């Protein structure tokens, strides 16, 4: 579904990604793990068109899309839920969700909203509340829901568990599983390596801007290198 070949990205003079290649098949959950500053967020930003690559090729369903703007990329169904949630704090939950469906034709929005509300019933109850007043876990739910409103085929989640209590993290991952069961392909960037890899079909390990390892989730979990990358011996 999504293929990345030899991607190189730099901010000014500092190169962040060095020849990254990966591919995602329809219906998979892919975990992308790696230490802070390894380039995970940059990779997502490049896919969603916020950052332009210096070289390399990204193609979606076999079609290259390096010339496309982030608007068209959203329209094609690649949706990026950013790190730190980045909700619109002075808008209500409903408005946040409507923003998620910005590129979706009006007639389809109601249907989407219903779907999202069945997945997160709690949001329906509080849809008039300002997003800035929600707790961290609730905000993450809204962020996920907002992402879903765009009708993604590929949902990219950047650190959805960041700064959340363990119990809440579990609920978030449950939600991710549910979303996946609805038929959405998921690219998950996580620090919470264990949960992420357990959930994932496959995983990639990114280190200093390079993919150093890839494999099935369980396989990676047992891999010594993963521990090395994280505990650094």
């Amino acid at each position, binding site marked *: 579904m999504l293929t990345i070949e030899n991607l190189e990205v730099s901010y000014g003079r500092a190169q962040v990604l060095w020849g990254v290649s990966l591919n995602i098949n329809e219906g998979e959950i892919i975990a992308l793990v790696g230490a802070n500053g390894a380039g995970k967020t940059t990779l997502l930003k490049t896919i969603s068109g916020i950052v332009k690559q210096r070289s390399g090729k990204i193609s979606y369903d076999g079609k290259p899309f390096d010339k496309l703007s982030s608007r068209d990329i959203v329209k094609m169904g690649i949706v990026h839920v950013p790190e730190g949630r980045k909700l619109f*704090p002075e*808008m209500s939950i409903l408005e946040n969700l409507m923003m998620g469906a910005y590129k979706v034709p009006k007639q389809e929005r109601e249907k989407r909203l219903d779907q999202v509300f069945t997945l997160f019933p709690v949001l329906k109850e509080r849809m008039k509340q300002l997003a800035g007043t929600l707790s961290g876990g609730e905000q993450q739910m809204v962020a996920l829901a907002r992402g879903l409103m765009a009708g993604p085929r590929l949902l990219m989640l950047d650190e959805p568990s960041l700064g959340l209590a363990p119990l809440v993290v579990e609920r978030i991952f449950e939600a991710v599983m549910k979303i996946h069961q609805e038929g959405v392909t998921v690219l998950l960037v996580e620090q919470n390596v264990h949960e992420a890899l357990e959930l994932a079909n496959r995983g990639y390990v990114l280190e200093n801007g390079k993919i150093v390892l890839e494999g099935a989730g369980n396989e990676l979990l047992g891999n010594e290198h993963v521990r090395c990358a994280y505990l650094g011996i």
Partner: protein
Amino acid sequence: METLVQSLVSGILTGSLYAMIGVGLTIIFGVMRIINMAHGDMVMLGMYSSFWALTLWNIDPFVSIVFWVPVAFLIGMLTYRFLLKKIVPAGELNTLLYTAGLSLFVSNLALLVWTGDYRTIKLDYAVMPLRPFGIAVPIPLAIAFGMAILITALLYWFLVKTDTGRAIRATSQEPMAAALMGVNAAQMEMLTFGLGTALACGAGVLLAPSLYLYPTVGEILVAKCFVIVVLGGLGSVQGAIAGGLLLGVVESLGAVYVSVPYKDAIGFVIFLLVLLFRPSGLFGVGKS
């Protein structure tokens, strides 16, 4: 008592127009982080548009506003596209200085073209004010008040209810996320600058029959604008509306009960106090 009510009424009437100007400035700041020193000159252009429509084509200002607002909207978008777009990323201080230059340019161009003559607008139906309950309400200001409320309400509706309006607010609150939702930030910025300019010009058109106009009138107005938006919290639309009304009332009451010569100083003192002790504005949600 009558004096108090009278000054409140005058204050609110003028304040509604201040609010309209302030809303324009505040949305521009919210989306682009531009402190637009040329905003007052947009009001000035609006006043002249109003004047010329009446003088040359005999169109009443309260009619001509219908086409001046869209024209101003277009001009605003073009200004953004050709003059400001490249300078916005250079940071708040550079844009501040740049728009100060723009202001100098526009007001002096107006001086050259229209001369510095003070002009006033004569409306046949507006010689004497209405006097409900013994309170004087000047007709042009009353009409302007109504239209300002209508336009501000329309804008509010636009920002809250439409996709594009939401996108503008989203961009001002969280530009990165808005881009991820598929919002074209550059387009929103252009649109916002257009809207801000249209509001300023519109307010100018409405103000013209009540005040007099000359090319550097913007200098006085822009200072008031800053007081208004800082009172309300930079970037907040509701805040600017409240700030505008508040400034109108404070000026009116201040002139009556405190001191005429220091009338303008009162506004500035409040401005400083708010900046120091409640930088998010009196009505701001309070992002730290």
